[in-house]
């Protein structure tokens, strides 16, 4: 049976996102995809499905949603105030939603990007190998009130599961390795870079995040002598005003600003998820340590599904306990006969 997601009211930064489009640098297209790739993996673990499926990315706040047939959802990424027909929903958990119900997702309580996943994923026709909107490139669009999106076939049945996650929504220490212009900065600037406490500036989006700090601008001696070169997400450009700008997945593919260092890929979800004002510092690590971090991150992602546990609810939190139908249960999102 065809299921459709109806966006009754769209928050300001609602897009369909997945793993993005890697391998198209030579065509001038950056990878894009979900700003917090970890959240995609968590949603997939909660719903027991592949991490390649597309979800709704909600920047800052969500919106109001309904479905045309019973569906399973999962909520991951930046925690947001979510209710189903007015009843609070637990974040980092999976839930069932019926066609008569209204899902309301308010502002983030920490972090930036929340994700709304559906059993079967959002079934947009893939374009250039992905369903992700890449707004800077002109692929896809911001979602608006009244938009309807087809959902894919859901082969799973379980809901009412929770996945404990560590806080990645408040900044912290970012691991970096040298980049191609690191040596163009003075030793004193390297040291100052590693000792400065930065804060996430209000200027930031899916292309990158600017950092604010107290002190003299960072600068290289011969800025004009730098040839434009390929950019990778995580590169920390020092722009004209001497402030670091950490590039994210939807960045340009070539850039001419000097790069003082590169944030390792595993720490990029924390960059994307830091709300304005969050504090960041940088720690230079060896390349071997960086590769070990990538391996550890891959293992942690693979182990996510083993950390999913039943969502235990305190009966005192359930105001309408007597109206619950304990027989069909909260763990099955599908209506009879589906």
């Amino acid at each position: 049976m065809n299921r459709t997601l109806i966006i009754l009211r769209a928050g300001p930064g609602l897009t369909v996102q997945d793993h993005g489009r890697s391998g198209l640098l030579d065509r001038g297209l950056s990878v894009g995809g979900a700003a917090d790739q970890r959240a995609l993996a968590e949603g997939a673990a909660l719903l027991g499905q592949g991490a390649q499926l597309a979800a709704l990315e909600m920047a800052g706040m969500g919106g109001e949603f309904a479905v045309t047939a019973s569906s399973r959802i999962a909520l991951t990424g930046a925690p947001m105030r979510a209710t189903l027909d007015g009843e609070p929903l637990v974040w980092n958990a999976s839930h069932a939603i019926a066609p008569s119900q209204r899902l309301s997702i308010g502002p983030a309580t920490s972090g930036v990007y929340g994700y709304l996943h559906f059993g079967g994923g959002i079934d947009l026709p893939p374009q250039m190998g992905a369903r992700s909107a890449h707004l800077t490139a002109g692929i896809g669009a911001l979602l608006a009130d009244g938009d309807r999106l087809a959902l894919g076939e859901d082969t799973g049945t379980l809901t009412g599961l929770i996945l404990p996650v560590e806080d990645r929504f408040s900044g912290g220490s970012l691991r970096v390795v040298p980049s191609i212009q690191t040596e163009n900065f003075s030793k004193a600037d390297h040291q100052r870079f590693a000792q400065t406490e930065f804060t996430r500036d209000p200027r930031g989006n899916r292309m990158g995040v600017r950092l604010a700090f107290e002190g003299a601008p960072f600068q290289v001696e011969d800025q004009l002598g730098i040839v434009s070169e390929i950019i990778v997400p995580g590169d920390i450009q020092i722009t004209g005003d001497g402030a670091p700008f950490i590039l994210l997945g939807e960045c340009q593919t070539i850039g001419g600003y000097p790069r003082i260092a590169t944030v390792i890929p595993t720490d990029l979800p924390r960059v994307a998820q830091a709300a304005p004002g969050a504090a960041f510092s940088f720690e230079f690590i060896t390349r071997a340590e960086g590769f070990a971090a990538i391996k550890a991150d891959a293992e942690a992602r693979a182990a996510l599904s083993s950390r999913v546990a039943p969502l235990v609810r305190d009966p005192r939190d359930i105001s309408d306990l007597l109206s619950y139908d304990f027989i069909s249960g909260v763990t099955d999102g599908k209506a009879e006969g589906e």
Partner: protein
Amino acid sequence: MQSLDYPCVRPLGLTGLLVTFAGKMDESANRAALAFRAAVDANGWVEVVETSTSLTSAFIRIDPLVGDPDAVTERLESLLATRDWLAADLPLGRRLWHIPVVLDGDGAPQLEEAAKAAGVTPDQAREEISAARIRVLTIGFAPGQPYMGELPEHWNIPRQTKLNPRVPGGALVVAIRQLIIFSGPTPTGWRHIGQTAFRCFRPESDDPTPLAIGDEVTFRRVSPSELDQIAADDPEGGGASVEALT
């Protein structure tokens, strides 16, 4: 300031490697980057997940879960040592494009200014642009957007310090011996000397980025009314024709 001996292999990010053939744009270094990338691709190393080229470098991205990037660095250095890459031939499989362009009137608001900067008359500038056969040196900033060159040395004109607030998609712009056809409307420091109806990025099409790095391009001068007709008849292709280079 760091000084490097070229060619050199350097990490770019944690999982990328950059093989650079010169510290500034140079036709033979660009050719070397294209040839070196093709040689890396031909090797089919399993841990290499993506390759590309910039103006003077080849870029190789590694999946560190598949193979050790430091071992790939050694293999790249060995491959570098096998020959003089600056004298390499261009790779096979490239194409030659002929793209209609308007070089006067509203479609070329800065042609006279650019000609003056290059020390030629406007008519000489139109002739030189029409006669030029240039190569897609790299693609970037926006999807499908080509950086093409090199024009003769007198076209080594600087970018303007004051930005042109908005040139349209399909605009032909010039600076530093290079031409760009813009993928979409954009502010720029490059001078707007012509207009094409060629769409560099066609997200809905089977071939979203028709130009490839290494392709060659010539421009066929048309009148503004001819370009209007071309845009109506061929809204994405802009009347361009293409042939295989053998």
